[in-house]
C-alpha cells in the first residue's frame, strides 16, 4: 500500500501546525507546573492535547510518540503536583523528539516491501486485468485486491493511457472502469465496448453511481457494479459475473516447479486465445482452482514435496473438478510412470522437452471434447442459444448477484407471433425461425453475462443485469429492432419480485397486456413528476432499490392527464412533484389534483428549489403533504417517502 503511505505523509505535513500546537499546550502546562502556577484552563487544554495526540499519531506511524502521549494523557487525568513536574517534562521532551523523527512516517518509496529473490519465491501468473481509475490510491487498492485473487493487474489513470497499455501488453480478460468524477466516462465506455466486443471478449465492468446512464453502459456491452463498494466486494462481483457468463475463452492452469517450463507454457499457449494461469508452488493448486476455475489442468510429475500423481488423484476425488481434463508434462518415459499417471485419472501425457505443436493439439483435442459435451447439455441447437434449464440457472445466478450487489435487473419474456393463415407445421417452422432470429439478434447485441435462453415453444427468456424494467424495455427495443414479429414483456427486480418464478409470471402478464396500456395501467407506489431527467432517474433508481414501484412523468399537463379522470391511467398513494415543469407548473398540477379529488387518496410532496415562504404556504394550503428543498439528500427524501406512505 505504497499510495496510502504517500497520502499519510502528505496529510502529516499539511497538519503540522495542529500537531505542534497540541505539543506546545502540553509544554506550556508542564512549564507552569514547574513554576507552581498551573491554572485549570491550561491543564484542561494540555489534557485534551495529550489525549488527541495519543489517538492520532499512532495512525501516522509514530509508535513511540503515541506511547509518550498516552503516558501524558494518563498523568494529566488528575491534577498533577509540582513533584510530578520532572517526569512530565521528560515525557514532553520525548514526545516532541519522537514526533520530529520523520523516519517513523510510513515509507512512501516502497522500501518497506521485502524485495523478492526471484529464484526462490514461487512464481504465479494469472489472467490480465486492466484497471482504469483516476484516483491513484483507489487503483492501488483495486490492483492489490486483483493480485490477491490471482489476477495480473495493469493500471492506467485514464482511457488514453489504458489504450497504450492494451497495445503493449497481453489482451486483458477483465477490464474495470472507475471514472469517478473524471470526465472520461464516454471514452471509458468506448474502450470497454471495444475490448468486450472482440471475439474472445473481455468482461468489462464499469463502477457506476447514480449519475451513470445505464442504458448507454449496456449498449457498450459493459457490466455494472456499484462504485461504492470495497475492493473485496467489487472483486466478488466481478468473479460472480465471470461465472455467470458462458465461457468463450478457455482457461488452462499449469502447475510446475520449474519457472522456465511455466514461461514456455505461457509463451506457447497465450497466443492461441487461451487464458493461461500458472504457479510454481504445488501447494497453491487448490487456491488456484478456486480462483481461476480452469477448463484444463497441466501437471508436472515430479515436484518437490508433492508428486503430481498424488495431486491428480486428489483432484479426481473432488466432485467439482472430477470432470476437468488433466494433462501431464513429464520427461519420464518408463512404463511404471505412464501407468501410474493414467491410473491416477489423467487424460493424457505430453513429453518434455515440450514440442509446441504437440502440446497445442493435445490440449485442443481435450478442450474440444469437453466443449461438445457441454454444448450437448446446455445449448438448444434449434435456436443456437442456451436451453431452458441452463437459462434458468444463469438467470438465478444473476438475481443472486443483483441481491448481493444491490443492483436492479430485469427479466423479460420475448414471444414471436406466428403468422396467420398457414398450416400447423408451417406455422411451427416459421415461428421457430423467427425465434432463432430473435435469439441471434439478442445474443449479438447483449452482453455475454446477460441471459438469452429458450423459454417456451415461441418464447425466449432474457435477463439483463443492472437495468430496471424501463431501461430494459428501451434496450430490448433497440436490440430487437431488426427482428420481426417479436413482443416482449418485462419485469424488474426487486420491484416486481425477488424470485425468478414471480418475475417470469410478471413478465408474462406484461406480455398479455395490450401495447397501449403497457406502461401506465398499473397502480404504483410513487409517481415522480420531474422534468430533470438525471434527477428523475436518480429518484427512480433509489425508490426501486427500496422496493417501491415508481413511474416518472416529465411534464405537468401529462401528469394531470395520467392521474385524473374517471378511470385514471395511473394511481399512486404518493406523488413527488417538482415545482418548475414544462406544461402546467407544480402548483398548477397540485391545484388540478385537488379539484379532481385525487388528493383524498394521494399524498403530494413538493420538491422546491426556491422555497419561498409564501409559495410553500400556498402549496400546503392547496393540500400538499409536505415539501423537500432542493438540493436534497436522497436518504432524507427516502425517509420522508417512507413516512408519507406509512402515516
Amino acid at each position, binding site marked *: 500500500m505504497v499510495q496510502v503511505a504517500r497520502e499519510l505523509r502528505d496529510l502529516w505535513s499539511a497538519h503540522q501546525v495542529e500537531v505542534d500546537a497540541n505539543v506546545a499546550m502540553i509544554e506550556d502546562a508542564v512549564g507552569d507546573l514547574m513554576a507552581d502556577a498551573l491554572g485549570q484552563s491550561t491543564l484542561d487544554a494540555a489534557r485534551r492535547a495529550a489525549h488527541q495526540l495519543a*489517538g*492520532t499519531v499512532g495512525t501516522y506511524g509514530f509508535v513511540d510518540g503515541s506511547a509518550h502521549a498516552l503516558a501524558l*494523557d494518563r498523568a494529566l487525568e488528575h491534577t498533577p503536583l509540582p513533584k510530578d513536574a520532572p517526569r512530565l517534562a521528560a515525557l514532553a521532551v520525548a514526545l516532541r523528539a519522537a514526533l520530529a523523527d520523520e523516519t517513523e512516517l510510513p515509507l512512501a518509496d516502497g522500501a518497506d516491501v521485502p524485495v523478492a529473490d526471484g529464484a526462490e519465491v514461487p512464481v504465479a501468473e494469472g489472467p490480465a486485468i486492466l484497471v482504469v481509475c483516476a*484516483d491513484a*490510491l483507489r487503483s492501488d487498492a483495486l490492483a492489490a485486491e486483483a493480485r490477491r485473487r490471482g489476477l495480473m493487474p495493469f493500471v492506467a489513470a485514464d482511457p488514453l493511457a489504458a489504450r497504450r497499455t492494451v497495445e503493449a501488453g497481453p489482451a486483458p480478460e477483465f477490464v474495470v472502469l472507475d471514472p469517478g468524477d473524471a470526465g472520461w466516462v464516454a471514452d471509458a465506455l468506448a474502450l470497454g465496448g471495444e475490448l468486450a466486443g472482440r471475439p474472445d471478449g473481455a468482461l468489462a465492468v464499469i463502477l457506476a453511481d447514480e449519475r451513470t446512464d445505464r442504458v448507454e453502459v449496456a449498449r457498450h456491452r459493459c457490466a455494472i457494479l*456499484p462504485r461504492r463498494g470495497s475492493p473485496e466486494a467489487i472483486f466478488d462481483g466481478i468473479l460472480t459475473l465471470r461465472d455467470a457468463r458462458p465461457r468463450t475463452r478457455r482457461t488452462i492452469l499449469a502447475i510446475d516447479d520449474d519457472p522456465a517450463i511455466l514461461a514456455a507454457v505461457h509463451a506457447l499457449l497465450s497466443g492461441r486465445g487461451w487464458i493461461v494461469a500458472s504457479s510454481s508452488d504445488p501447494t497453491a493448486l487448490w487456491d488456484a482452482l478456486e480462483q481461476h476455475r480452469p477448463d484444463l489442468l497441466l501437471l508436472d510429475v515430479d515436484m518437490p514435496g508433492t508428486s503430481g500423481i498424488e495431486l491428480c488423484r486428489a483432484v479426481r476425488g473432488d466432485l467439482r473438478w472430477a470432470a476437468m481434463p488433466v494433462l501431464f508434462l513429464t520427461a519420464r518415459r518408463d512404463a511404471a510412470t505412464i501407468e501410474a499417471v493414467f491410473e491416477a485419472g489423467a487424460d493424457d501425457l505430453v513429453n518434455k522437452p515440450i514440442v509446441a505443436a504437440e502440446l497445442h493439439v493435445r490440449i485442443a483435442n481435450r478442450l474440444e471434447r469437453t466443449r461438445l459435451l457441454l454444448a450437448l447439455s446446455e445449448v438448444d441447437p434449434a435456436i443456437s442459444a442456451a436451453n431452458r434449464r441452463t437459462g434458468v440457472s444463469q438467470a438465478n445466478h444473476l438475481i443472486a448477484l443483483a441481491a448481493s450487489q444491490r443492483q436492479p435487473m430485469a427479466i423479460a419474456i420475448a414471444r414471436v407471433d406466428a403468422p396467420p393463415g398457414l398450416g400447423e407445421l408451417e406455422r411451427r417452422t416459421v415461428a421457430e425461425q423467427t425465434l432463432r432470429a430473435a435469439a441471434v439478434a439478442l445474443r449479438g447485441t447483449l452482453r455475454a453475462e446477460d441471459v438469452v435462453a429458450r423459454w417456451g415453444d415461441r418464447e425466449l427468456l432474457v435477463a439483463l443485469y443492472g437495468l430496471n424494467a424501463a431501461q430494459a424495455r428501451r434496450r430490448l427495443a433497440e436490440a430487437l429492432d431488426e427482428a420481426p414479429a417479436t413482443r416482449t414483456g418485462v419485469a424488474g427486480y426487486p420491484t416486481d419480485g425477488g424470485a425468478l418464478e414471480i418475475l417470469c409470471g410478471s413478465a408474462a402478464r406484461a406480455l398479455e397486456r395490450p401495447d397501449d396500456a403497457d406502461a401506465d395501467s398499473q397502480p404504483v407506489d410513487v409517481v415522480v413528476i420531474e422534468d430533470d431527467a438525471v434527477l428523475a432517474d436518480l429518484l427512480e433508481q433509489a425508490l426501486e432499490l427500496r422496493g417501491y414501484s415508481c413511474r416518472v412523468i416529465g411534464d405537468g399537463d401529462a401528469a394531470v392527464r395520467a392521474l385524473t379522470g374517471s378511470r385514471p391511467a395511473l394511481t399512486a*398513494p404518493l406523488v413527488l412533484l417538482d415545482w418548475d415543469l414544462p406544461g402546467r407548473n407544480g402548483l398548477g398540477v397540485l391545484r388540478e389534483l385537488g379539484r379532481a379529488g385525487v388528493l383524498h387518496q394521494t399524498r403530494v410532496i413538493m420538491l422546491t428549489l426556491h422555497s419561498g415562504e409564501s409559495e410553500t404556504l400556498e402549496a400546503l394550503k392547496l393540500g400538499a403533504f409536505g415539501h423537500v428543498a432542493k438540493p436534497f439528500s436522497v436518504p432524507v427524501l427516502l425517509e420522508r417517502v417512507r413516512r408519507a406512505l406509512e402515516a
Partner: protein
Amino acid sequence: VQIAPHDRVGDSQRDPEANAYRHVLVIDDSRLMVEAARIGLDRLSGWRVTTATSGHEGVALAAATGPDAILLDVEMPGLDGPGTLRALGEQEATRRIPVVFLTAAADSDRERLTALGAAGLIAKPFEPARLAGQVSEVLGWSR
C-alpha cells in the same frame, strides 16, 4: 394508505448494511484523524464518508444525511462523545443509527462506553487500510 414494501421484497434486498450503500459519518475534533478515516473508508473502500469536527456539527449532519453508521471520538471539546451519543439518541431521525466509539482510552473505559449504548469500540490509533474491515467486523457487516 399503508404500504409495506417488505411484503413484496425479501429483507436482504433492502438491507441498509449491504455494501453498495455504506455511508459512514466520522465525528472527531482532530482533522488528522478524520482525514485518515477518509482514506481508509472512502478512498480505499469506496464508502461514502461524511465528516464533522465537533459533536454539534455531527448531530446535525447525522440528521441531514442519514448515515448507516457513525464513528465517534470520545473526548472532544464542547459536546463530547457520550454527549453526542445522547443527543443522537434523542432524535427520531438518528436514534437507530449504530454508533462506534473511536477511543485511545484504556480497557477499563470500554465497559463504561459500551454501557452508554454504543454498538462497539475501535481503538485508536488505527491503520487506515484496516479500518473498513474493523468497522464491518464491529457492526457485523459482510465485507
